[in-house]
């Protein structure tokens, strides 16, 4: 089926999704056909397919089960659930049953950390799993039920919001209210107000949103793009999922504001595949906005404009949350971060000026206009006005979503979560900050290994969640005193090794080698000098990696070393001239087996 016109490469991923969903794999004949249609070589296409872990070359079963392997999931009893699935379907992890009915696979965090253990079956969510429930699910599917009929729609579990007049997100909103402001202000003034609001990138990078819009506005172009980053991949984060479930209209209106402000005519929501179950509702909502004239041609504003929004589905790659990687992915390429010669606001999607904003950032904008910027500025702290949505998971009774005002004391926040005997609180996911809350351990620590953020308090309990102290992208994972910090950071390291795109040496190889070093320590063969190696190797990775993934990948590791010295002291032996990791019995075991077998054959 050769088409006369070559379709736009940006449709490639959705074509691959169609085939993956229909056939449960992408086979050689599909590859031949698609490469002909898109006029690319087969190898290039295989390069794209193999980059994303939800595309497969081999059949993954009519019902594909993806079980979360994050640390939070593990501590919620993941092993038992894995065992239950293996028993119920009769094959091990990473395998497909011989009748091609079920396939069982690992996947990184699926954004349900407050409802773990959880899995996706054909991208439908199943939460709060236990052994019995697993067998029930499999039996029902075997008896002909569709996963969509029996799945759990994830609950939003909003645990905390400030008093009504100080809440920004989780309170009723009547559609289009804020959009009326577009008729009052010209684009420049919208940008001025956003700048005045000090709104900054809520994905965790905290780049000033108004400034980003202004930069994009000043580049002349026939077309500009707005991209909503809904590729929430940082383990432990699920705030964007809840926002998209509770207030998707705020996100859409935020994109309309952004489009008006910078002069963009096309918008894309880059939705991670793990949230595929939200796609239909989002599409219906977009249709509603179209029918009310707020998307499409001549959107009412002081200067009416054209703008529409489409949804681009990711396919399983954490690195695509990095904006330049995301743009490459949208163009139907491997999701590798760009070379950073240009910012996306200058040369982004298809080489045109593009604004990439996080879901929460965009959802904030209509709220600011609704309440008025002066009222907004009364909330939070000077540097970070407003509120922040945190996703709380791990060892605490009140797991779920917290909308807190910036400036809340860390100790006060911990109280809200109901945690008893906390030991480690991981802020902003594996790439974020590792906070120690055993008071005596953190006393002497004044500066973090991360140069940009010096600790302000002697005791981390007294720290403040704000732009002035600990910022947070959204993930808060709480670990109690029974948890092992070495095990936690090893899990983080495994995550980065699996999710590195592989394009630059320090991140690809450095993290891999560092991971082996950590394993050596966990195996009990670590020496004092190994710790020095870890510090210096981490620094090399931090200073020379191409994108944030590599640069931030060892934050937690370095902080853990600084904050839990006794754990590492205990795990490490004195330096020796003989490598303790080398074990003669293990090294010769294979030889012994071969010789033994030969001798046995003679007798």
């Amino acid at each position, binding site marked *: 089926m050769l088409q006369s016109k070559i379709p736009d490469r940006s449709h490639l991923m959705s074509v691959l999704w169609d085939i993956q969903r229909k056939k449960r794999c992408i086979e050689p004949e599909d590859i031949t056909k698609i490469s002909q249609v898109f006029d690319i070589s087969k*190898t290039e296409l295989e390069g794209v397919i193999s980059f994303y872990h939800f595309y497969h070359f081999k059949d993954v079963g009519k019902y594909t089960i993806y079980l979360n392997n994050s640390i939070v999931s593990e501590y919620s009893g993941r092993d038992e659930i894995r065992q239950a699935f293996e028993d119920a379907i009769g094959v091990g992890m990473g395998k497909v049953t011989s009748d091609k009915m079920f396939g069982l696979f690992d996947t990184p965090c699926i954004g349900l950390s407050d409802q773990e253990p959880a899995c996706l079956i054909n991208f439908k969510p199943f939460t709060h799993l236990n052994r019995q429930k697993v067998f029930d699910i499999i039996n029902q599917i075997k008896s002909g039920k569709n996963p969509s009929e029996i799945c759990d729609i994830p609950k939003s579990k909003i645990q905390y919001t400030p008093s009504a007049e100080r809440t920004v997100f989780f309170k009723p909103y009547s559609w289009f209210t804020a959009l009326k402001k577009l008729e009052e202000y010209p684009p420049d003034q919208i940008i001025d107000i956003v700048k005045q609001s000090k709104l900054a990138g809520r994905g965790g990078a905290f780049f000033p949103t108004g400034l980003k819009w202004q930069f994009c506005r000043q580049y002349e172009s026939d077309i500009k793009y707005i991209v909503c980053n809904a590729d929430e991949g940082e383990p432990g984060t699920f705030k964007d999922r809840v926002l998209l479930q509770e207030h998707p209209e705020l996100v859409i209106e935020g994109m309309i504001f952004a489009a008006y402000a910078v002069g963009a005519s096309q918008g894309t929501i880059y939705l991670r595949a793990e949230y595929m179950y939200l796609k239909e509702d989002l599409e219906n909502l977009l249709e509603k906005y179209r029918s009310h004239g707020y998307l499409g041609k001549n959107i009412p504003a002081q200067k009416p404009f054209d703008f529409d929004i489409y949804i681009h589905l990711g396919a399983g790659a954490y690195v695509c949350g990095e904006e330049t990687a995301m743009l490459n992915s949208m163009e139907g390429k491997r999701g590798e971060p760009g070379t950073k010669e240009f910012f996306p606001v200058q040369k982004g999607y298809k080489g045109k000026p593009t604004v990439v904003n996080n879901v929460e950032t965009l959802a904030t904008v209509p709220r600011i206009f609704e309440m008025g910027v002066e009222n907004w500025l009364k909330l939070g702290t000077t540097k970070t006005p407003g509120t922040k949505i945190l996703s709380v998971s791990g060892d605490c009774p009140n797991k779920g979503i917290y909308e807190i005002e910036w400036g809340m004391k860390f100790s006060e926040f911990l109280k809200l979560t109901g945690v008893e005997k906390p030991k480690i609180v991981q802020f902003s996911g594996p790439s974020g900050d590792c906070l120690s809350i055993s008071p005596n351990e953190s006393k002497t620590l004044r500066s973090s290994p991360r140069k940009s953020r010096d600790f302000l308090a002697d005791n981390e309990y007294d720290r403040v969640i704000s732009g002035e102290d600990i910022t947070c992208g959204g993930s808060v994972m709480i670990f109690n005193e029974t948890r092992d910090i070495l095990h936690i950071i090893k899990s983080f390291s495994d995550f980065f090794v*699996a999710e590195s795109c592989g394009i630059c040496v320090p991140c690809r190889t450095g993290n891999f080698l560092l991971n082996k070093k950590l394993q050596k320590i966990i195996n009990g063969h670590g020496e004092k000098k190994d710790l020095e190696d870890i510090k210096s190797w981490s620094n090399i990775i931090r200073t020379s990696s191409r994108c944030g993934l590599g640069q931030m990948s060892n934050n937690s590791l370095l902080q853990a070393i600084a904050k839990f010295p006794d754990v590492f002291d205990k795990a490490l032996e004195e330096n020796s001239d003989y490598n303790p990791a080398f074990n003669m019995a293990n090294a010769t075991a294979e030889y012994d087996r071969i010789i033994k077998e030969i001798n046995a054959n003679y007798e």
Partner: protein
Amino acid sequence: MNKPITINIDGKNIKTFEGRNLVDVAKENGIFIPTLCYFRDMHPLATCRICTVNLNGRQTTGCTTKVTDGMEIEINTPELLDNRKAIIEMLYAEGNHFCPSCEKSGKCDMQNLGYDMGITVTRYSHVFSNKLVDFNPKRMIMESNRCILCKRCVEQVKTKDGQSVFSFVNRGVKTHVQIDYEQEEKLTESEAMKTMNLCPVGAILIKGMIQEEPFGERKYDIFGKQKSPVIQGPGVFKEPNEKFIVATTSLAGCFGCHMSLLDIDLEILDMLEVVEFNKSPLTDIKNFSKHCHVGLIEGGCANSENIHVLKEFRKKCDILISFGECAIMGGIPAMRNFVPLEECLEEAYLNSTTSELGANIIPGHPDIPKLLNNVYPCNEIVKIDYYIPGCPPNAQHIWKVVKSILLGEEFSIAHDEFKYD
């Protein structure tokens, strides 16, 4: 683009024009920023990261930097120099680089940077992962063991109708370059040759293609004659009247390094004025009779006896030196690390062309040392103090290094003495 500007590199003011590439500007002014993935006239790829510099206090890659007025650039701070070295070492540890058996030796960008930076060993342990060598394409061989994923071929090699011949597949540590057989056939002879030359290492080869220049007379062999990285470490302490005591051994090696060692001919007599040999194949002393100042180790560890000997050397010698590729990274014997041990034994004793008809014995006896699952570089078993790379290292070179170490002197190694091949 043509605005004249001034930038500052490592304290030196340089006049140039706005928007030019930093690596090029530096080069024109006699300042060398090492690069691996960057190729003249090609869009920067920024994959290898070794050109990382400090730009106004922030780290970024030189190859993607376009100069603007007043830029403050640091290229050779101790930290950046070490980062660069570390990245090259990572590549050596990640891939399987057996320079002595590589067609590109002497023309390899990575090998050359290794010499320049004075890399004698990697700080990382070798991964020895099994990588694909693809002989299927009509003309080319894709040797993934040597590939450093610089992306040059992926970005640059296209057929006439614009299709990519190479692509990255998979991601993370599993990323490798895949070659498209159909597209490869469409390349002309000269395009295929260009592709081979585009590869900074020996990963893309043309079948039947012979490198014209012999080893020792290739591009970097000639380039590097004047360069001499400096190496220094702690010396040896001995009583004034005492001779230096040296022990040597050959583990899983070919004795070639020992042969090379004897190549100083009559000078060995002068050497014996100050040096006394203890346990060594040269003296045929089987057991240590005293503590030694220096132990020279040839060969890696392939069997249990090698391990015992190496550990004994560590115990009996103040300073241990690995000399030759095999001791440093396993060398040629380590090529068996990609083949299951059982297959190795069967190949050696049962299926080889020289084995007798009907051979069915793989010898196994308590007196025979046990083969290890892998061949190990010596520094993965015991602490090694110095490394002398080469296959084999040149005789003068070995003695120069040993002498400098014994006397505690700083020494430099000329590029053409410092050889991996």
